[in-house]
């Protein structure tokens, strides 16, 4: 009997666990005491801790010790603007941790004040899901596949993996949520089947994920059972609640025209607002299957009974802008991925809000009615479902599988390719970025480049790791640094140090440096010491990089020319020391001073001027 590898969708508001059931030979979503999806909430009390629905339902009586939405800050530093922004709206306290500047959550637990890292909170959610899986399967569960948003960076992935480890899980793989959604529909298997029958080349899948508060669109490329994330986009603050807000406003207008004094009371009463919001949310759900729905709240305030009928067309009119934004995002992401309408073979719907018929129709029409939308898997469970498919493939080495995994049998080496969102590299002399792994390289990947020393007899090298697209490291994001000592003692340029970047399937970066002669070695795993980038920052950096590429090219040219100039001057120096002509000695000293003191801020033209002096005086071509 193979050991099960469960699939976990660790969501911002809700989490879900699924596992391949060997008896039914199907992936099953496992019910926890909180239901098929569990609120990602943890609450601390004098008696102990509560997780899931139990934690959420007692928030009113214990708001300071009830923790939720930690996914918004996991893997981020305390100084990250996102952490600060989110912390403002949290009722629980978030402070700066002493060691690495990571955020810590303060709670009273069993009569003691405790400081907990976001990873620890997530671990509690994961442990609860693990327990539910163990009860369901009747055996211990040790391994899991956990999903993260496609835009999660290294640190966020590492932190999620750490959370798994704290929960006692061996995290076999961290996969992207859209990739998991594609797997849940067995698109990898479908591809195989089609390949066996008809000839079909590389295809693309669009994943449309509209949840309670976030919206993500991804384009995945599929080729011979290999998935690759080509582009992602979306809005971290767009979801079901926004549609509710539009209906809320409409209701309030309705009340206003009926009775101004009631309107004022409703507006001021938190209770009336909450009750109306609940009714509105319910109405929105009904409208996904009916053409009209009633919003009815008796005694909303005083004796005022609020009853109104909303039909589907009105609902669509109220939210037309938001729906348009969603569809526009799909177009943008497709354009980023350089993917045409006819290149797409499947569209997968994820998240409760994708049940809205108008959105489905818009997507269907966008692809000229050519593609049936994948919506048969419960939209709130598709990601966990897909993670379990991946877990099963890993558990059985790809050779096992039931009917719904029939295609998987044929693809023992199913690879899930995610890409690195930003280029990774190290700092060179002159603050130049030397890229080892280019942006959008499928992971896992490994790359080694050889570097050398700048000064004579230098035995130590600082290896500073950056991510970003700019040629100058100052414009990129520093990830960490380490020192390699024991480098061969030799003249500048003689030692050879291999620097290796290994980005594993979970997107975690291991950097190592080794001297080819002395075998001295140093390595580092990138730790969350510094504030990392948000998805917006990444987008901005990429946009900036495009914009500044010309500038950067000039900078590169300047740096190259400067080192050529240095080289030429050193050669000249040895020549001048032999001839010892006074005018030449003076000229050289001036040039050396200029190089040392003024060259930093000099333009390329000014440098070339110096180059011409060298050429004219000593006949050296500087290039």
């Amino acid at each position, binding site marked *: 009997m193979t050991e099960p590898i469960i699939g976990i969708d660790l969501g911002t508001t809700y989490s879900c666990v699924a596992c391949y059931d060997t008896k039914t030979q199907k992936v099953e979503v496992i019910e926890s005491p909180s239901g098929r999806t569990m609120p990602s909430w943890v609450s601390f009390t004098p008696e102990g801790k509560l997780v899931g629905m139990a934690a959420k339902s007692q928030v009113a009586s214990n708001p300071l010790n009830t923790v939720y939405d930690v996914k918004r800050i996991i893997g981020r530093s305390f100084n990250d603007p996102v952490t600060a922004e989110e912390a403002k709206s949290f009722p629980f306290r978030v402070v700066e941790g002493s060691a690495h500047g990571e955020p810590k959550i303060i709670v009273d637990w069993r009569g003691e004040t405790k400081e907990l890292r976001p990873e620890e909170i997530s671990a509690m959610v994961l442990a609860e899901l693990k327990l539910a899986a163990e009860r369901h399967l009747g055996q211990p569960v040790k391994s899991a596949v956990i999903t993260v948003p496609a835009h999660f960076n290294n640190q966020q992935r590492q932190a999620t993996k750490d959370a798994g480890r704290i929960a006692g899980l061996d995290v076999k793989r961290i996969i992207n949520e859209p990739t998991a959604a594609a797997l849940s529909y067995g698109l990898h298997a479908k591809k195989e089947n089609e390949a066996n029958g008809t000839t079909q080349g590389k295809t693309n899948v669009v994943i449309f994920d509209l949840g309670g508060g976030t919206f993500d669109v991804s384009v995945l490329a599929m080729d011979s059972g290999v998935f690759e994330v080509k582009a992602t986009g979306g809005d971290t603050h767009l979801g079901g609640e926004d549609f509710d807000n539009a209906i809320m406003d409409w209701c309030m207008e309705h009340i206003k025209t009926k009775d101004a004094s009631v309107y004022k009371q409703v507006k001021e009463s*938190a*209770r009336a607002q909450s*009750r109306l919001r*609940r009714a509105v949310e319910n109405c929105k759900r009904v409208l996904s299957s009916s053409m009209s729905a009633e919003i009815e709240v008796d005694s909303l305030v005083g004796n005022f009974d609020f009853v109104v009928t909303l039909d589907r067309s009105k609902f669509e009119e109220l939210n037309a802008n938001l729906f348009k934004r969603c569809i526009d995002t799909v177009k943008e992401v497709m354009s980023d991925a350089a993917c045409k309408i006819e290149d797409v073979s499947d569209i997968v719907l994820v998240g409760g809000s994708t049940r809205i018929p108008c959105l489905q129709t818009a997507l269907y029409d966008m692809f000229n009615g050519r593609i049936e939308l994948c919506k048969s898997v419960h939209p709130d469970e598709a990601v966990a479902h897909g993670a379990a498919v991946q877990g099963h493939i890993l558990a059985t080495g790809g050779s096992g599988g039931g009917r719904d995994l029939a295609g998987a049998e044929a693809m023992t080496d199913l690879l899930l390719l995610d890409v690195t969102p930003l280029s990774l590299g190290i700092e060179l002399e002159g603050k130049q970025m030397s890229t080892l792994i280019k942006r959008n390289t499928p992971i896992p990947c490994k790359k080694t480049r050889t570097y050398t020393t700048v000064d004579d007899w230098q035995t130590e090298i600082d290896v500073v790791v950056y991510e970003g697209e700019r040629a100058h490291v100052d414009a990129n994001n520093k990830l960490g640094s380490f020192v390699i000592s024991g480098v061969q003692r030799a003249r500048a340029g003689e030692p050879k140090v291999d620097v290796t970047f290994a980005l594993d399937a979970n997107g975690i970066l291991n950097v190592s440096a080794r001297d080819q002669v002395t075998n001295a070695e140093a390595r580092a795993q990138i730790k969350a010491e510094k504030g990392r980038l948000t998805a917006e920052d990444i987008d901005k950096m990429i946009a900036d990089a495009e914009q500044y590429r010309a500038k950067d090219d000039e900078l590169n040219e300047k740096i190259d020319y400067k080192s050529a100039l240095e080289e030429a001057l050193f050669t000249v120096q040895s020549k001048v020391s032999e001839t010892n002509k006074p005018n030449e000695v003076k000229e050289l000293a001036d040039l050396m001073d200029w190089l040392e003191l003024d060259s930093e801020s000099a333009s390329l033209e000014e440098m070339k001027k110096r180059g011409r002096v060298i050429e004219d005086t000593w006949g050296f071509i500087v290039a």
Partner: protein
Amino acid sequence: NGSTTTGIGLENRTKILLFHSPLYEQDREGIEKLILLSKEIERIDTDRQNHVIDNKTVQELIIQVCCKLDCVETHGSEALRKVRKSMIVKAENVAHVSDMSER
């Protein structure tokens, strides 16, 4: 005793009496839910009086109870709707009293 049941009109124990009116069955589910929620309101009030929970908590819990009350389906039954309304009033009273004592 046989003579007594015959005396009141029951023969061979074929006749039984309805404990509730015919409408009750239709509303039963709703009524049962409302009874439970009524008890919840009373519990909040007791906790409030015993200072187990503060006003802010009372307000939040009452909002939750009101939302649950709104969720009780009346299926068009006026009687049930009346009971539901009275429960809302009862819940709001607890919140009101709590607010007053806070001031």
